[in-house]
């Protein structure tokens, strides 16, 4: 009984992966659980494990090719098993070489020579494995995939197409809510002219073409899913850091406790605040909200090619030093793309800290399905009035971006007020 090896779908947002290298070659014996290949997803580099034991009879995708999730990439079978008949029935993977980004995945029929191994014994089987034209298309990803345009065809109502043309909206970036993902009028509501620019413009002269990494593409897609349909609003507040800075120094001197970073302090303070404000740990679901009781906070970790959100679970139940240690570990692994999917998905609220870059304040984009994100600026020295005298204060600006479908300005202001109060009276953080 042959076992199919497919490009896995390791995260909700993963639609395709890059096959980086095979650890095994054709003819090798494999045990269930063996690492077969190294795969780059939109967020991380991971090992692809065998789910069955046997002989790796056939490799269908060479390293360096991008394959949609769900497509067949290899077959494991008994050593003496004839897999030709099985292969003839299979749909060949839709691959394209890294560097051919932007082109739609080519069906195997159009580019068979590129999609399979060029080794001589495989060339013989090539024509046998070309699928019949009427072979039914294989679902590349389940319907929950964020943008289901993997076949390159965009389904939109004529009205939606007209609106998109008038407002120069690129429909390939829109998730349709109609039957079979059809984009309809309501999916474009609130999108202003050029909000999602059409890609029809001619390329700039002499511009250098830089291919997007998988991560950058994932970020681009996720941000559009956020900014386009989620009505953001922003509330900014100033926090007096006069008390918390000395506390931080004191904690550092306290023996083996690692010095908490500004992010760690905010994670803890936000977690305590989130306990009191269920709306900010909710997600909007059309006719209801899903309120999470687990306070899992995502922290944006910057790296040269993009940003990833490390998730710290149950932050309200962890001590500051536990949070601090966990953040250090996850940030370090995030920078080398070694976070596991469960370590960068499923946050209920996110924090983005640019304080180390001399940024007064900024507004962050919400990561769906979260309802809010907190943006932290730098600590600035400013004149403040204290006890009737002007003194130099340490002031930080934070900005809360909120999904207006979930909460309003009043609640956002109350949330910030509570957070500010915790940061300005920080003893509760040390508990």
């Amino acid at each position, binding site marked *: 009984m042959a076992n199919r090896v497919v490009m896995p779908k390791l995260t909700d947002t993963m639609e395709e992966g890059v096959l980086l290298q095979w650890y095994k070659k054709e003819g090798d014996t494999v045990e269930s659980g063996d690492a077969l290949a190294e795969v780059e997803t939109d967020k991380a580099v991971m090992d692809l494990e065998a789910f069955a034991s046997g002989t790796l009879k056939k490799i269908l995708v060479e390293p360096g090719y991008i394959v949609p999730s769900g497509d067949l990439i290899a077959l494991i079978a008994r050593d003496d098993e004839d897999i030709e008949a099985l292969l003839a029935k299979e749909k060949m993977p839709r691959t394209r070489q890294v560097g051919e980004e932007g082109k739609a995945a080519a069906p195997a029929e159009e580019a068979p020579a590129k999609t399979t191994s060029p080794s001589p014994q495989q060339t013989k089987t090539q024509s046998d494995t070309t699928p019949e034209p009427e072979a039914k298309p294989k679902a590349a990803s389940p319907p929950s995939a964020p943008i289901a345009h993997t076949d390159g065809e965009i389904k939109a109502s004529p009205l939606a197409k007209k609106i998109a043309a008038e407002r120069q909206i690129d429909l390939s970036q829109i998730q349709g809510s*109609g039957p079979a993902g059809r984009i*309809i009028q309501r999916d474009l509501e609130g999108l202003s002219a050029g909000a999602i620019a059409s890609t029809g413009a001619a390329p700039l002269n002499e511009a250098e073409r830089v291919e997007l990494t998988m991560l950058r593409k994932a970020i681009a897609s996720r941000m559009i899913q956020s900014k386009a349909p989620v009505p953001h609003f922003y509330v900014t507040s100033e926090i007096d850091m006069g008390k918390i800075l000395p506390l931080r120094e004191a904690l550092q001197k306290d023996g083996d406790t690692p010095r908490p970073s500004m992010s760690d302090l905010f994670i803890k303070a936000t977690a305590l605040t989130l306990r009191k404000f269920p709306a900010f740990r909710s997600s909007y679901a059309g006719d209801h909200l899903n309120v999470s009781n687990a306070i899992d906070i995502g922290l944006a970790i910057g790296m040269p090619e993009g940003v990833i959100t490390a998730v710290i679970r149950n932050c309200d139940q962890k001590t500051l030093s536990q949070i601090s240690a966990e953040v250090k570990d996850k940030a370090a692994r995030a920078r080398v793309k070694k976070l596991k999917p469960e370590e960068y998905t499923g946050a209920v609220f996110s924090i983005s800290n640019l304080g180390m870059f001399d940024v007064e304040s900024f507004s962050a984009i919400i990561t769906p399905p979260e309802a809010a994100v907190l943006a932290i600026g730098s600590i600035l020295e400013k004149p403040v009035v204290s006890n009737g005298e002007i003194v130099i204060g340490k002031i930080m600006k934070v900005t809360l971006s909120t999904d207006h479908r979930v909460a309003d300005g009043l609640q956002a202001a109350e949330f910030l007020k509570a957070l500010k109060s915790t940061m300005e009276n920080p003893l509760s953080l040390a508990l």
Partner: protein
Amino acid sequence: MPILAYREALNQAMSEEMRKDPSIFLMGEEVGFYDGAFKVSKGMLKEFGPMRVVDTPITEAGFTGVGVGAAMVGLRPIIEMMTFNFAILGLDQIINNATKLHSMSGGQLKVPMVFRGPNGSAKRLASQHSQSLESLYCHIPGLKAIAPSTPKDAKGLLKSAIRDNNPVICFEAQALYGTKGEVPDGEYTIPIGKADIKREGKDVTLIAWSKMLLLCLQTADFLAKEGIDAEVVDPRTLRPLDMETILESVKKTHRVVIVEEAWPYGGVSAQISDRIYYGGLDDLDAPIERVCGEDCPIPYAKNLEEAALPSSEKIIAAVKKVLYLK
């Protein structure tokens, strides 16, 4: 404005025109001594006499042909069919003579006549007497077709039909004859080929004629309770269609449900949706839904007959579909 029954409005239209033009006469089964099978011609024999209100034997092919001949030589006959189920016998005269003689004679002959009578089901009349046959007639070039839904439209459109120099067929309905509505005082006509917005709305366009129009207005009230604001468009004339008014409405609502009592295959609603796709494709946010009679002979049993005809439930389901509501 006076309130009249639909049958009274038709009676007024014919009587007023006959008083002005002596070449007009009414002919059909039971139109005279019996005052009409559905009392549409009540009192007309008394007023106009047996030369102008002519009772016929049960011979649809015969008296339809007599009417065509009379029209060819200068009279303006109104041929009443007891129902359009029986008019099938006269179809040869309508298709092969009434609609063709003007063009076949190079314009030398005119056939200014009206065929009129009830169309469609009327509660438990069984398969052979419950048919909605307007699509058969609308298929034929040379024939105009009207299907008024209110007493006001019935009077104004029938007067225009009588004055038209071409054959015009007027689809009435047994269930409509007793319905009442305001009819303007004095002389007025409603032009053939002009649709009417019976209810303004912004969320979805319902298109229907004759008694289905009344069902749509009632359904629009139900929809309003669910927060859906339906526009109800009455084409009034089925050929030629007033696509301008219909497309204007589609442009506003972006969603269309067409309701027709007749069978779905090749129905007038199919023709209207074809014209909407042709002229209004870019305005549509959802495929057009058609709510038609079920594709079977109309059953006699009460429950089955009701199940075979369009209903508010079916219309609401179609409306929710075009609005992508669950």
